[in-house]
């Protein structure tokens, strides 16, 4: 299935639950074993409120939303963001919910420009996340 995009279109909100187990799995898959992503002790020692998600894990959730909106994989031509606010993941079964919204800014020969909004607990966690999809 291929989606047709038009400028101004609001894309359906995607929500993702993130638990400590997800962070452990991502550490193994990505090779990023920084202990701030699995040890409260180390996270606390560098001034964090607790274990935080890898910024690249949150970015991967944004990419997942893009695949969902595009109706398939392999259509991302550009993807970028700033890591502005940590996603703190508690040591419980509930975890936290990351929400990804998107708006189509323009459709040109270059592709489909999408402005994203990625938030957790009502606060934006990525700065200026945006993407270009193949048209």
């Amino acid at each position, binding site marked *: 299935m291929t989606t047709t995009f038009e400028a101004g279109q609001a894309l359906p909100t995607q929500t993702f639950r993130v638990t400590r187990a997800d962070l452990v799995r991502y550490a193994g898959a990505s090779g990023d074993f920084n202990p701030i992503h699995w040890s409260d002790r180390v996270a606390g020692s560098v001034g964090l409120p607790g274990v935080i998600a890898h910024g690249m894990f949150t970015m991967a959730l944004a990419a997942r939303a*893009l695949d969902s909106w595009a109706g398939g994989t392999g259509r991302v031509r550009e993807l970028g963001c700033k890591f502005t606010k940590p996603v703190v993941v508690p040591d419980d079964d509930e975890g936290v919910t990351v929400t990804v919204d998107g708006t189509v800014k323009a459709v040109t020969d270059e592709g489909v420009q999408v402005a994203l909004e990625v938030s957790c607990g009502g606060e934006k966690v990525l700065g200026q996340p945006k993407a270009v999809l193949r048209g």
Partner: protein
Amino acid sequence: MAVDPSLAGRTFPATEPYEVSREKILEFARATGSVYDGEAAPATFPIVVAFSAMTALMEDPDVGISLHRVVHGEQRFTYTRPVVAGDRLSATLTVDSLRQIGGADIIGTRSELTDADGTHVCTAFATLVHRGEDA
């Protein structure tokens, strides 16, 4: 210890080729909840290859970076084509910019990922924030 000011503009040797397997893509896709249909790897998968180039930079004793002081500030990918199983990817990292803000070194890096025949697959731009001793 501050980062070596002559770092700006420096290009590091290409990393050893990384052989992308179906199993590795599947592991990454599962860890991020992404779809993998045997074709394109998830959009942020190239971080696995770029990460090794960034690690080489951060572990170079002449550069003067303390790993535990590094925060990932910003990330951007541009793709010529998606990564697929069977790719042999090398990353060549260049330090595009180096500036100091409030006692921190802001290191702008660009890792060019090329396939075995030297063709461009993806560029990973990462901004690394290296906090000073007092920051």
